């Protein structure tokens, strides 16, 4: 029941937000998201204590005709992402304080509805249910970007929508294909059965299914060359939309790689791993180099995000304990860091009406607190030791190194290039002389200070105590890795 409550609580607050009037919308939705956060932390602690509690599993029959069940379950891997989602949404909602949002009721209820759909994606243990939640998560973010986005939003958001849907449809084909190849009379969509069926398919078919699934997830993450929707969408979306997209939604794709792609078609992974790692590393380098070339801070962050998630994808495909653990941890860290930095961008844009870095400068002298907190978030993104970003990137690079030294070397360049563009951005915007524009910066509001301070605390906390999270997922990750290796007969050194 606990797990059902996790998915339904945001929906309850969607209804509450819609009932009351516009002025209360933000407060009600904030309260709802905080309640869900409490529930999420409670679930995490309970899971730590006793993973076999029945409250973590909810399984009822849904469509008997095709063998689809409504099956959601908390396990060591998705609890991390549940924690990420429940952690970030209150920040996302509160980041809108002091900003004018038209139609706040619809806006905040869409955010909460999306939270519910995202939790459903992570918790689903049934392929059809997973697909339904995956598609369902697309609708609110589409509406958020469409109605509250910047100019030119119709074309850009539509491109985003069609692109993602295109990938999802191929995932649907793959799901149906595996469902049909169930040798028993009772067809089912359950994850367990998919692992069993997929493992017994001939290698060629596994490769085809791999490609179909990969298409969907690669578009979502995104990975080069299916990334072209990302920079425009990030820049044009409202800040909260960008935070939802980069903080949580793209983790859907990475999560699906770990749980719905590789264990389902291990031979497909074995055949394709070289190529997808190459694509991921290209993505890392492409994102990083493009970030250097940007003058618009938000656009630079979009490309930087592309680079970071390329590394996550590469680490996952290396498929060893460090790689996958690193990917899970980096999902958590990157989520926190990227939301923090987009919040910084939002603060700057709110005051300066521009994010062109050559037009800004010297903000440090105007707002000391802001510059310190900005720097901490930035260092987390750059993966400086003591921050959460360091733990994630180190584990990822370690995992990638075990797979291929060359790949690791190229991917490791992201650390250096990342430092380059981030620190240069910081230098351009914060250091130096104030000009006529930035003189009027003023200090940041208390709300902004508190939020940024919370982010800073989280960044350092997760940098100092990674094992809190890592030990929860260690066992399930080991089981998945062993499952795949047993099918592909790889001897783990």
């Amino acid at each position, binding site marked *: 029941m606990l797990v059902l409550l996790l998915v339904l609580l945001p929906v309850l607050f969607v209804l509450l937000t819609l009932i009351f009037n516009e002025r209360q919308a933000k407060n009600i939705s904030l309260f709802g998201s905080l309640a869900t956060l409490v529930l999420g932390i409670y679930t995490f602690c309970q899971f730590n204590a006793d993973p076999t509690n029945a409250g973590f599993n909810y399984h009822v029959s*849904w469509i008997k005709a*095709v063998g689809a069940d409504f099956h959601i379950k908390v396990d060591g891997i998705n609890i991390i992402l549940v924690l990420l989602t429940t952690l970030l949404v209150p920040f996302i909602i509160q980041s809108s304080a002091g900003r004018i949002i038209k139609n706040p009721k619809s806006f905040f209820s869409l955010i909460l509805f999306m939270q519910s759909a995202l939790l459903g994606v992570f918790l689903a243990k049934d392929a059809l249910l997973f*697909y339904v939640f995956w*598609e369902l998560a697309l*609708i609110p973010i589409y*509406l958020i970007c469409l109605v509250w986005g910047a100019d030119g939003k*119709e074309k850009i958001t539509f491109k985003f*929508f069609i692109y993602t849907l295109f990938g999802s449809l191929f995932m649907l084909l793959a799901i*149906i294909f595996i469902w049909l190849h169930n040798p028993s009379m009772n067809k089912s969509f359950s994850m367990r059965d998919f692992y069993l069926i997929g493992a017994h398919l001939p290698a060629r078919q596994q490769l085809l299914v791999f490609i179909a699934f990969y298409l969907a997830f690669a578009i979502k993450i995104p990975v080069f060359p299916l990334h072209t929707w990302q920079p425009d969408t990030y820049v044009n979306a409202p800040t909260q939309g960008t935070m939802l997209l980069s903080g949580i939604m793209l983790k859907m794709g990475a999560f699906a790689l770990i749980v719905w792609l590789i264990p389902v078609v291990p031979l497909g992974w074995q055949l394709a791993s070289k190529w997808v790692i190459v694509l991921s590393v290209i993505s890392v380098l492409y994102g990083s180099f493009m970030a250097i070339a940007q003058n618009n801070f938000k656009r630079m962050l979009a490309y930087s995000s592309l680079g970071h998630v390329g590394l996550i994808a590469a680490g996952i495909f290396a498929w060893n304990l460090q790689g996958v653990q690193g990917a899970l941890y980096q999902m958590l860290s990157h989520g926190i860091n990227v939301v923090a930095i987009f919040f910084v961008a939002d603060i700057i844009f709110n005051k300066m009406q521009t994010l062109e870095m050559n037009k800004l400068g010297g903000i440090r002298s105007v707002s000391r607190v802001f510059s310190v907190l900005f720097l901490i978030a930035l260092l987390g993104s750059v993966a400086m030791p003591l921050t959460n970003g360091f733990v994630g990137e180190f584990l990822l690079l370690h995992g990638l190194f075990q797979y291929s030294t060359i790949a690791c070397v190229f991917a490791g360049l992201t650390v250096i290039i990342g430092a380059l563009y981030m620190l240069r951005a910081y230098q351009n915007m914060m250091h130096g002389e104030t000009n006529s524009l930035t003189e009027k910066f003023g200090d940041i509001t208390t709300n902004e200070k508190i939020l940024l301070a919370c982010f800073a605390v989280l960044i350092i906390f997760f940098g100092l105590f990674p094992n809190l999270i890592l030990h929860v997922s260690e066992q399930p990750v080991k089981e998945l890795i062993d499952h795949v290796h047993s099918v592909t007969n790889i001897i783990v050194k």
Partner: protein
Amino acid sequence: MKELLLLSSLGVFALIAEMLNIRKLIYPLVIIGLLLNIGLCVNDFGQNELVYGMLKLDRVALTFTILFSFIAILWFTFARDYFIDETNLSDHFALVLFSLVGVFILTSYTHLVMLFLGVEILSIPVYVLAGSDKRNIYSNEAAFKYFLLGAFASGFLLLGITFVYGAIGSFNILQLVSASMSPFGISQQLLIIGLVLILFAMAFKMSAVPFHFWAPDVYSGAPTVITAYMATIVKIGAIVGFYRLFSIVNSFFSYYLGILLLISVLTIVVGNIIAATQTNVKRLLAYSSIGHAGFIILGITMLSSATAPITWYYLFSYALSSIAAFWVLLIVSQQTDSEEISAFNGLIKRNPVLAGTMTIALLSMSGIPPLAGFFAKYFILINVIGKGYILIAVTAILASLIGVYYYFKIIIAMFTGTSENANGIPVSGFSKLVMILISLLIIIVGVAPDLIFQFIFSKN
């Protein structure tokens, strides 16, 4: 038999009501009559009544009769608003009720002459209704085009039936089974040709490619209420009529598989691609209905024991969304005197209920989970892939993606378009209620498709 009598007498009553000047009673009595019809069908489950040896009220007949009766109830509610000023409300209702008799015959026939009779009884009132907006030249054109081409198709139908009779010596479609075992060569060829001609005629009625050319002009010329009728109930009749015959034929004549696959794939592709180019919403919905018909034909081609429930489910979700979409279109086009997509600009501000209903209907038609339209398409795709036609499934999926494009053109206009006329659009409370009910039904049927399958199909 009871259902037949009930529907016919409802039609006669509607005519008489005009003479006796009790027009106000027509709508309530028609609704009660249709509800009674549903009740009779539920009651008749399992009895397999044979009416004069020509109609068999088996499971398919009764479930689809329940379907079209329910959709007809929704249609009459929708049409009542439109006809409120018309003096010939009863004439229109009578024609529609008689046409419903035709649909009933098409869901339950076993005699080929009944097939012809059903098609004619279904179509002739619709020919008249399509032209009912006498002052509009497009309406006249629609009626004329539909009548001419429809009569031509009926000629093919009759010729096909004659050939089949010549081949097997009987009008009873159940005897086609034994006919396939017949060693007489000439009869075999005649039978095949006859069935192909019937197929072409039914494809015309279902607006399948390449027999669809009448559909866009007729749909956009006819009054919107009648277009809604054509897009939902006439399609149900044609499709079920086609299904009854070809479910028997398909199981042992592999010749038709190729033709049917070709027709269905062409229909899906052509319907969706041309719809993407439309800016007139009525024409867009017409082409999209062609696309949906293609999906259903594809589902029927993949014949299996699950075909009847899947077809029912698809027709149900499609008809619900269609009625909702045409209803909103009618109100918006009456308000703004335009049927273009731009008429929907900013509808979310002018009337949220209308915009919400339209959004849910369009999302369902484009196949977005967890709405009914997604599962409908999905069940058909399972069958297609299960039989091994992966390329066809991919084509159908890509065509649906194109569908998303044009449905979203309307949704985007509703949410972000700006219109000069920023006044709210008045809609009666009763209409709003029914629209919200339809939207809820689409969502519920989508979230729990098992309700339909267990509820309707567990009765046998």
